[in-house]
């Protein structure tokens, strides 16, 4: 007997294609669902996607200075550096007029940018502008603009100033990213290491990584037994324990951090007890804060709940019978733990680990307060450039690198463990 399979389109009783009919029926629901999430979507786009996009653009944006000195830069590109020591007369001329007629505020902004490329630009241009304004006022037209400039200030005859233009003449620049990893452009436009005394980012990146890894490991070591207790104690005890775990969440981050300073400083509680017990001498008080140790201790304590909670949520659902079954099958408790219990907690370990690591790598307040000079993390530099030097391009580049690292980690994690293995609650 032959079975015929109909390939014709399925129709509803009314003769409308089934799929079309289904789509129509679902449309209302889809629309409603979309309208329900729309406010949140809008909120996320405005407060999250757009700022991040803007930040990423800033990290490569160099258009402001190009709008201040468009002609100078155009002429500058014609300069044959091999043939002439100094730029051609046209460059000086364009600069003369752009400084004379330019908007003061815009020039001010551009000066800040120029100073990142080479320190000294700001005062040089400011002085020069004053002189140029005088010349323009008098109504004289210089015979040689080049000579005039050099007469105003001998630095105009120094080609190194001119070379630093190289990194600014394009609308897009990768200088901030290079700066963020202690690199800069040489006079020939090659990427070279910064001066020794200006190298601090690579060191900070490595420290940030090291601290984040250590904090994650310490959190795991400290959090695993606590989470296990939480998941297995009778309810009345585990509730109490849960309050202790959550208590830090309800306390201000600043309060906790300053509490650690009180605890750890040289005249603090811990040193006091150690001296009193005679474990350390009065002169040999331990330096536990305002350095990397302080950062590690305080961050571990502050981030511990983020490890415990995912672990707990995973452990809670592992039936107790599994450990019993493993022992019943002949495994000693340690073996049962290793082969049966631990593998089942991996979703919790990875969720907690990723969470703690992500939070740690961008942590700011705690390292800033207890970190001292050598306990500062990359977040501190971002804040420094954001608030003090106003070098937002570098800020954005540092943030962009941080974001990139996170994305790479996420990708790696997804490759190795699988993101659906994560379990937060």
């Amino acid at each position, binding site marked *: 007997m032959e079975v015929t399979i109909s390939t014709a389109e399925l129709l509803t009783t009314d003769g409308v294609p089934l799929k079309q009919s289904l789509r129509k029926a679902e449309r209302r629901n889809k629309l409603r669902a979309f309208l329900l999430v729309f406010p949140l979507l809008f909120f996320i786009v405005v407060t999250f996607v757009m700022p991040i996009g803007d930040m990423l653009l800033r990290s490569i944006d160099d258009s402001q200075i190009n709008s201040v000195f468009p002609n100078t830069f155009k002429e500058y590109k014609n300069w044959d550096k091999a043939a002439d020591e100094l730029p051609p007369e046209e460059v000086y001329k364009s600069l003369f007029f752009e400084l004379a007629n330019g908007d003061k505020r815009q020039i001010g902004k551009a000066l800040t940018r120029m100073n990142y490329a080479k320190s000294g630009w700001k005062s040089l241009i400011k002085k020069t502008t004053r002189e140029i304004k005088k010349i323009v006022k008098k109504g004289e037209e210089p015979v040689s603009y080049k000579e005039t400039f050099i007469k105003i200030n001998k630095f105009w005859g120094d080609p190194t100033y001119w070379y630093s233009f190289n990194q600014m003449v394009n609308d897009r620049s990768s200088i901030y990213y290079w700066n963020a990893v202690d690199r800069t452009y040489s006079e020939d436009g090659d990427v070279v290491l910064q001066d020794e005394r200006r190298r601090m980012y690579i060191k900070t990146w490595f420290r940030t990584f090291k601290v984040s890894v250590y904090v994650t490991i310490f959190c795991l070591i400290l959090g695993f037994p606590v989470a296990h207790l939480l998941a297995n104690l009778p309810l009345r005890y585990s509730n109490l324990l849960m309050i202790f775990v959550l208590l830090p969440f309800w306390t201000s981050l600043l309060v906790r951090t300053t509490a650690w300073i009180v605890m750890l400083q040289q005249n603090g509680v811990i040193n006091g007890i150690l001296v009193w017990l005679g474990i350390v001498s009065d002169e040999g008080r331990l330096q536990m804060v305002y350095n990397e140790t302080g950062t590690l201790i305080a961050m571990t304590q502050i981030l511990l709940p983020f490890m415990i909670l995912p672990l707990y949520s995973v452990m809670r659902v592992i039936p107790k019978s599994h450990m*019993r*079954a493993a*022992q*019943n*099958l*002949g495994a000693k408790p340690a*073996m049962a733990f290793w082969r*049966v219990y631990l593998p089942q907690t991996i979703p919790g370990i990875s969720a907690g680990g990723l969470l703690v690591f992500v939070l740690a790598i961008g942590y700011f307040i705690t390292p800033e307060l207890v970190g001292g000079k050598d306990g500062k993390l990359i977040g501190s530099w971002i804040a420094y450039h954001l608030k003090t030097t106003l070098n937002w391009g570098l800020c954005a580049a540092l943030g962009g690198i941080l974001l990139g690292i996170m994305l790479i980690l996420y990708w790696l994690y997804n490759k190795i463990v699988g993101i659906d293995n994560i379990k937060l609650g």
Partner: protein
Amino acid sequence: MNDASQSFVKFEKIDKSYDGEVLVVKNLNLDIAKGEFVTMLGPSGSGKTTTLMMLAGFETPTNGEIFLDTKPISKIPPYEREIGMVFQNYALFPHMTVAENLSFPLEVRKISKPDIKEKVQKALEMVELGNFGTRFPAQLSGGQQQRVALARALVFEPRLVLMDEPLGALDKNLREQMQYEIKHIHDRIGITVVYVTHDQSEALTMSNRIAVFNDGVVQQLSTPDILYEKPENSFVAKFIGENNTLNGVVKEVNGSSCTVELDGGFGMVKALKINVNEVGEKTQLSIRPERVSIDSSTSGSNNFSGKIEELIYLGDHIRARLDVCGNNEFIVKVPNEGSFSHKEGDQLNLSWDSEDVRALDI
């Protein structure tokens, strides 16, 4: 030979308390022979699972000793007892495949790889899951998971297998099928099984002997037929099978039988004297529904009449709920022979053999 060497598993004067105030198991004495299938049957909280856990080594007896193969085992940790166990929710390890689950007990015993492979395959074939080795437990149906759990408990050739309500999570049809399967596997490999359940039909189907637990005490330990036909107290009579009860007072004791006057002046009943002793004692009479005959005048002693309260047609028989001697939950099973023509509200004449009435405690 002394007693301990005859029984493979021996519970001796076992008491168990969790909080020092309530005894969960009271003075348990139980002997299980090698190769036997013994079921611990009882309502929840009756101490049967605790007893099983003590045997497996996950609970310590508060008093007494358990002997396995004549050796006391209280000091032996669970992982050295060589007792297989099927847990209530199977406790299959979700991160291991079926084959890995089965090889786990063999790996921890450091058995060689080829041997493991062979034993695992044999165990899987025993439960008819030969091709399922590479699947994960979550990819199996409830019945298949059950079989894997069974195979895992047997694969390392334990001395004894414990099963803690292993069929509780299955639907009715599958449960019945698995009952037979477990029974057949037991018959085939001859292993000693201690089975815990609260389902009396499961216990009756599978066991050589059943220990009926209530309130931490074994009420009766016997073969299924004896338990059903000759319950020794009213708990067993009520718990196993369906049971009609009539309350009364013993009026006369005559050897192994007695006469009981029913409460409410409904008359006298001749019954077997089971656990009543003297005249004047209150008693509860137990009669199985299928031992009551209707419309007959064969039996001389116990003739009563009852009003039909409800009739339920069940195909092979009709279940009649009657009001007899003040008990309106009196059930009679009438075989469907096509001749039953009574309606609800009719009076029926009932009679039963005095051998079928058991005078039990109240």
